[in-house]
């Protein structure tokens, strides 16, 4: 018995430490705090709920309350910026709800070892008709890949010309950022980095079994960067794979909830 206690006392903390070190497996995601834009786990926000009343919400703690106020129509109060803040808080809560919708953590993990911040473009589920722009905004509309065709596509929607030289080997995110262009050629995917070109930044990578299939999924939040890029709501890209060597795909049945409040499935 003593031995069991001894083993538990040695192994449990070690396991706990290892679990804790795994990237964002169970704790809440990072948010950009309103007004400051700082990276925070929690933020406080005061919003008008009627013509004369205001209410303070601590996000994500008060997400349910926020959702119920939104259902009551409070999101229409306030000025243009305040109305946008309602959307931001709702968006953050929706993301959290998306991560937490499945209470079970996927046992089979082929994603957390992958360094998404330096992900190779070729590892992403890109294909003709399903470039990253479409993929991030409406993954369901992406057509299935044609049999025998590799997953490649243009990376950017507004690429104006094909550069003469390509950097195929380095066609990857670097510290969460990719700037440049990717385009298909008969020889395969061609990619060119251009530090002055628009691109994408991965803001966070969270892990959850978003479709409850037992496989851990990685959820990437990205934003566009660079001149002429706008910064709309954050783009959410869930990725999964079923072995360590295959490319990532979109998890089946892991549709990201549409914008706006809902009275279904609020977990957090």
């Amino acid at each position, binding site marked *: 018995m003593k031995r069991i206690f001894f083993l538990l006392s040695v192994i449990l903390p070690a396991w706990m430490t290892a679990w804790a070190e795994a990237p964002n497996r169970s704790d809440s995601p990072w948010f950009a705090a309103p007004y400051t834009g700082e990276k925070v786990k929690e933020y406080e926000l005061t919003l008008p709920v009627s013509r004369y009343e205001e209410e303070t919400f601590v996000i994500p703690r008060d997400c349910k309350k926020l959702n119920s106020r939104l259902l009551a129509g409070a999101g229409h109060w306030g000025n243009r910026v305040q109305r946008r803040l309602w959307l931001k808080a709702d968006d953050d809560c929706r993301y959290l709800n998306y991560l937490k919708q499945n209470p079970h953590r996927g046992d089979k993990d082929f994603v957390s070892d992958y360094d998404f911040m330096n992900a190779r473009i070729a590892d992403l589920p890109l294909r003709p008709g399903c470039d990253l722009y479409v993929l991030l905004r409406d993954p369901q509309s992406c057509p299935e890949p044609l049999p025998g065709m590799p997953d490649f596509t243009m990376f950017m929607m507004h690429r104006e010309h094909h550069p003469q030289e390509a950097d195929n080997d380095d066609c990857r995110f670097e510290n969460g950022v990719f700037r440049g262009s990717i385009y298909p050629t008969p020889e395969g995917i061609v990619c060119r980095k251009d530090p002055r070109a628009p691109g994408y930044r991965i803001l966070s990578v969270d892990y959850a079994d978003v479709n409850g299939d037992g496989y851990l999924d990685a959820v990437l939040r990205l934003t566009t960067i660079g*001149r002429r890029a706008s910064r709309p709501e954050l783009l959410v890209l869930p990725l999964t794979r079923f072995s360590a060597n295959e490319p990532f795909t979109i998890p089946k049945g892991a549709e990201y909830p549409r914008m706006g409040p809902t009275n279904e499935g609020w977990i957090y």
Partner: protein
Amino acid sequence: MNRVLSFFADHPMVGLAILFLLSLVFSWKLDDLQVRISAEEMLVQQDEEHAFYDRMRELFGDEQAVLVYLQAPRLLEQKRLKALKEAIGEIEKLPFVDRVESLFSVPWVKTVEGYLDKKPYLDKLPQSPEEEQQVLEEARKNPFLRNVLVSPIRDVMAAAIILKKESWDDETVSHALDEAVAPLQGHYDQVFTIGFPEVRSEIVQRIRQEQARLFPLAIAALLIALFLLLRQLIDILLPLLSAGFSILWTLGFMAMAGIPLNVVTSIIPILLVIVGSTEDIHLLSEFRQGQRQGLATREALKHMARRMGTIVLLTFATTYLGFLSVGLSRIQVLWQFGLVSSTGLLFNFVATVILIPSILSLAGKWQLDGKAKIYGEKSRRIARAYWNFLWRHRKATILLFLVFTLASMSGIPRIHINHNVIDSLGSDSPVRQHIDLVNRDLAGLETFSIVVDSGIEDTFLKVRYLEELAKIQQFIERKGWSRSTTSFADYLSLLNGAFQELDEPVMPESDDAVTELMIFLKYDEVKNYVTKDYSEARILVRHAIYDSEQLKQVLQELQEYIHENLDPGLQAHITGDSVLTLYATQAMIDGQLQSIGLLLVIIILIIGVLFTEIRVGLLATLPNLFPVVVMFGFMGFLGVPLNIGTTMAAAIAIGIAVDDTLHFMLRYNRELKASKSHGIAMYQTIYSEALPVISTSLALIAGFLVFLRSSFPPIEQFGMLGALVLFMALLADFVITPLAISSLRLVTIWDLLSLQLRKQVLEKSPLFEGLHPWQIRQFILSGSIQHYQKGDHVFNQGDESDELYLLLTGKVEACLPLPGKGYERLEQFSPGDVFGDVALLAEIPRKTDAVVVEPSTVLVLNRESIERNLRHRPRITARIFANLAGDMARRLIRMINRQHAQGIKTRRQRS
């Protein structure tokens, strides 16, 4: 006034007691007198422009700050930054400091791993020269720092100290700030604090120094001038004493009224010494003249009171109005100057009319040696020769003056305007040199704002309207008017650049992007640039344009651009310190023209009423208008700008110069009455007025020249122009005035009012039939009144006939002398009757004697005065001649009837 002077001559101790008591009253509050320089006081108060500016400050906050200028090769070296941080910490502890903006506090808006990071540029001190350079380069990209707190090309940076709204003593502020940055001296090659408190502090210090330096100089100048001309100890001391009293009272008045000593009001004590002495000199001169005529002190005082009482009152009034007219300005310092200086002059007048008779009554006999020998026969000869020369060459002289005036007028369009507090400092001033460095290395200390208003909420959350702001900014930068224009659009661009991870700020491309950015922005960060409802935005323009005319042109061009290019839904209004300063410049010029115009009108009216003819008033302004034209021409040709100092010179100088004209005209009037000859009256006037007019003018010129020693260019220029105007006025008084009035028969209002005429005389006299009493009096005063005793002969048979007589009182008979048989009475004249006219008009010698049978008063009109009346009062004279013809006809008929009756009687007697 004569009675007042006589009263104090009779009761000198009462006079001295009043002076003492008044001095006690006014010295009571003297400790409360402040020396204060405020930029606000140089601006137009209580007008729409200022109200808009106040509203802008209320909405967006103040424009200005005190800068800590720092220059060193490695600006961000750790040891320097540590010292700077410590100094800033000390500055922030100062009670008058609201906050300090520097690289330690200004956020470096960037993204770290995709999240916004607004930590200050120097949140962590750079660890290597490369890091230092990187931070500096990043700071230089920030439009809110570039040219504001960091020089884009030089090793210069700054910290901006924003002061609390409560007003603090400038000297306390600048002294404390200097102390706080003193430890940085060893760390940076050049360190100083510079802002408007420093400018004002230096001005205050200079005022103190100048008071101590210029005041004795003014007194010395006056003393020398008085000594050289008057040579009487008491006469030299009395003007100084009366000036002393008036200065004490004026300073007391300023303390009581809460008016501080500032750049402009600080010259008042010196002006009182200079200007206040003129009345004293005239009174003393008349007193001494009386003494020289052999009058005892008491009689000489009465002589002085009688001769000068009314004149000094009048001349005081014109000078008083000259100074008061400066107060018409809407600029606070100028109306303060107008009020205080005119009150000071009033005090000086009171002190003079009390002190002079009182002291002269007590010690008038006491003379140094009476060496003033200007009233000698030689001087009289010189005066006569001068007048003869002037009269002979009058056409050439007038032509010369006209040419000179026209030449001066051609310089007037060249006058340029400059009204800036910084210009009060010379180029040798350290503060001015610091400002020049800030202007060279950063965007400058001066500011103005463009407030763009839509009247609709959330307007400036739309790219289209943000681009309107950017368009105006680009225009300003393109024109090279400013190296730093900042707006809400810049802040959003900065934020957008950070979010898009660009190297530079970029304007968001869509309204949605703006809204997205807005959720990461605290309103406090942009409250200086946009209102809370985003309906109004401010573009802050920092610049180094100090020249008012250049600034005016810039603002006009900017206004035109805005008018032509701004979205019609927006309204833009340019305001700010620079705009108000410019507006004040315009108000200053308007005030100047208004003052001069009003003063000239008042002078015309006063002299016109005084001499009963507006034409005389108009002629009297000639010698006073001439110096003003010359002054403006001089300003144009020599590039002397119209500024806070020079703007006052013309009005003040006219107010002073007109005194001499008045003295001259009144003296001429008196001399003409006495001599009945214009030539004699004129050289007598020149002879009598030469000493007082020249001595007061030279004393005044010497006094004004003292201001040339001032270290403030506007005051220096004021002194130079004041001296020039007075010199020109002196010249005009001895050239233009004699020529202008020599053809006039001056009649003063006192002559008219004091003329004792019985009503029935006027009503009865056939000469004045159909004339108004006023016209009758004017005509009467063109002659001279003579009194005769019973038995006197007004004229005798055979005398030259060049006079006409109007009997005012008494009885006169026309008699034909019968050799050895006495007289045959031909006609008896009673009051109202005219006699002596027949021979005059026939131009033949007298045919009868005119014998006084009762003590009589007779108005004598000579041929010259009748001809003069014919020229100057043709309507009155025509009426008089018509009446005279009627009267002569009646007398002829009477005579015929009498002769006819006489003939019948003789025939009867014969028969």
